[in-house]
């Protein structure tokens, strides 16, 4: 079975990527998971500088989903490069660094720093985090903002550039097209849906940050729709995610048009999910007389519908 995929210049041995923020810096999982068997690891979103993040409570469960408002607690890009990259290289991980800035220049600076780091395979531009006030989603909710960040980073690096789109917009495909025009190599979607939960007994928000991002199986049907819309309106390879928890879910995104997929929340529930996903996909391909994952990508049959 050939599970390899290409996201522009980035070639992955399989389409299964650990979603950013849901797999730490990757090294946390090295005891349980052979990182070299994953298509790639998208590490936790990094700013230039270390960040404290929001006070707890940072997560709350909701029906078939969860809200998070971690607030991008992180060690900053320099400590990441110094402390995490050596282990990630040694473990054979294909590393996608998820970067986040408050200004366009910060994204550019992050891209410059990471361009010279051995073992960094691609940059995922987090312009869609709903949990921080400055930066991030303010670019992701404006077409010109998206175009601006992507083209600035594009000029600053030879690494593959993958802007991560927010679902909190009216027309996500327009953002994929803006990313395409700005020179992105692929787009990834979806980040989380801005949402909130209230403790009715105290009449206070359940999250310290009031609002957070909804992820998990609950959002899958919306995410699949958005991947399909982007697939229909750009030629960029798509990295699809949102609630994937089984091989069938991953295949659903592939059929809708995703070349690769990321798994976030489900990894919390089942950290050994990766072998199950691979086995399930190979079984599916076998049963359908197919030999390549790419044979499935973008094959939704809407005849007569």
């Amino acid at each position, binding site marked *: 079975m050939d599970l390899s995929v290409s996201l522009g210049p980035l070639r992955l041995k399989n389409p299964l990527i650990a979603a950013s*923020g*849901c*797999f*730490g810096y990757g090294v*946390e*999982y090295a005891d*349980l998971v052979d990182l070299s068997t994953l298509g790639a690891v998208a590490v*936790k979103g990094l700013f230039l500088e270390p960040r*404290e*993040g929001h*006070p*707890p*409570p*940072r*997560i*709350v*469960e909701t*029906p*078939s*989903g*969860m809200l*998070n408002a*971690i607030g991008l*607690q992180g060690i900053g890009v320099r400590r990441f490069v110094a402390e995490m990259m050596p282990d990630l290289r040694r473990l054979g991980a294909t590393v996608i660094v998820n970067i986040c800035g408050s200004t366009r220049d910060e994204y550019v600076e992050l891209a410059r720093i990471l361009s010279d780091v051995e073992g960094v395979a691609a940059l995922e531009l987090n312009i869609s985090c709903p949990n921080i006030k400055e930066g991030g989603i303010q670019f992701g909710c404006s077409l010109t903002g998206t175009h601006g960040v992507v083209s600035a980073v594009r000029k600053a690096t030879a690494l593959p550039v993958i802007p991560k789109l927010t679902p909190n917009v009216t027309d996500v495909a327009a953002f994929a097209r803006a990313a395409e025009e700005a020179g992105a190599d692929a787009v990834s979607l979806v980040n989380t849906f801005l949402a909130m939960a209230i403790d009715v007994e105290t009449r206070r928000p359940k999250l310290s940050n009031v609002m957070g991002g909804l992820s*998990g*199986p*609950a959002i899958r049907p919306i995410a699949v729709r958005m991947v399909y819309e982007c697939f229909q309106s750009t030629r960029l390879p798509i990295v699809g995610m949102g609630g994937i*928890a089984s091989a069938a879910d991953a295949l659903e995104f592939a059929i809708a048009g995703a070349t690769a997929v990321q798994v976030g*929340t489900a*990894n*919390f*529930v*089942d*950290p*050994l999910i990766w072998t199950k996903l691979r086995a399930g996909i190979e079984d599916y391909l076998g049963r359908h007389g197919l030999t390549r994952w790419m044979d499935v990508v973008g094959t939704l049959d809407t005849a007569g519908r």
Partner: protein
Amino acid sequence: MDVEAVVRSNTRLSDDYNVVALDAPAVAERARPGQFVMIKPARGTDPLLRRPFSIFEVVTGSDGRPAGLTLLNKRVGVGTTLLYEVEPGRRVACLGPLGRPFTLVDPPAEAWMVAGGVGLAPFATLAAALRARGVRAALFYGGRRNADLFFTDRFARLGVDLTLATEDGSRGRRGLVTAPLAEALAARPAAPPLALYACGPTPMMREVARLAAAHGRRAEVSLEQVMGCGLGGCYSCVVRIRRGGGTPHFVRSCVEGPVFDAGDIVWEELAP
């Protein structure tokens, strides 16, 4: 280790408390006092996430080797209710052992454990480990009422000195267990060294931390932060820590805890 553990038995202790025994030799073998497991209470996606539970007991098989573990469960919500009702024979996913265990002491040091309610859970394995090392141990154990105090005989059999307290006075001292603890600490000579271990409601642990500091004793507390993954992946379970003179910062309680040095915790910021 993530295993699909068979539920061997489910013993209801009261309307709220039960003990679930799981077949999980690989987890049990590695378990150290104070560590926890992440349990998936339901098969579908509601509830979605796993729930953290202290390893209550390590159960040995007929060959004397670890064969499984038990959980002391208190039902407070949807996941713990499912675990309260779980039928023997079912399988539940059990990931562990996880987290930083208690620091064990050696004689002549003595150990005092302080438990509030379901906070008893990490102390059965700790008491056994202390006994194996020949450490003299005491348990200060509080609950709302007599019916909420369990397994006192078992601790007594392990040679643990018991001090009980109930809020309604139906057993032991009336009031909070930290009152007799404070008296005992005040009455105790400086030597031999004494280690405190606490698990229970935040106000109780905070009071233990205060008393320990006041009497110059080292205390470890086992915190119960909400946890998304238990593996350091999600950064949901953070606690604000201040070590030495350093600046306070968030650390993940699933990997740097759940057992912390009581003096390191920024108690003002901990949810009640």
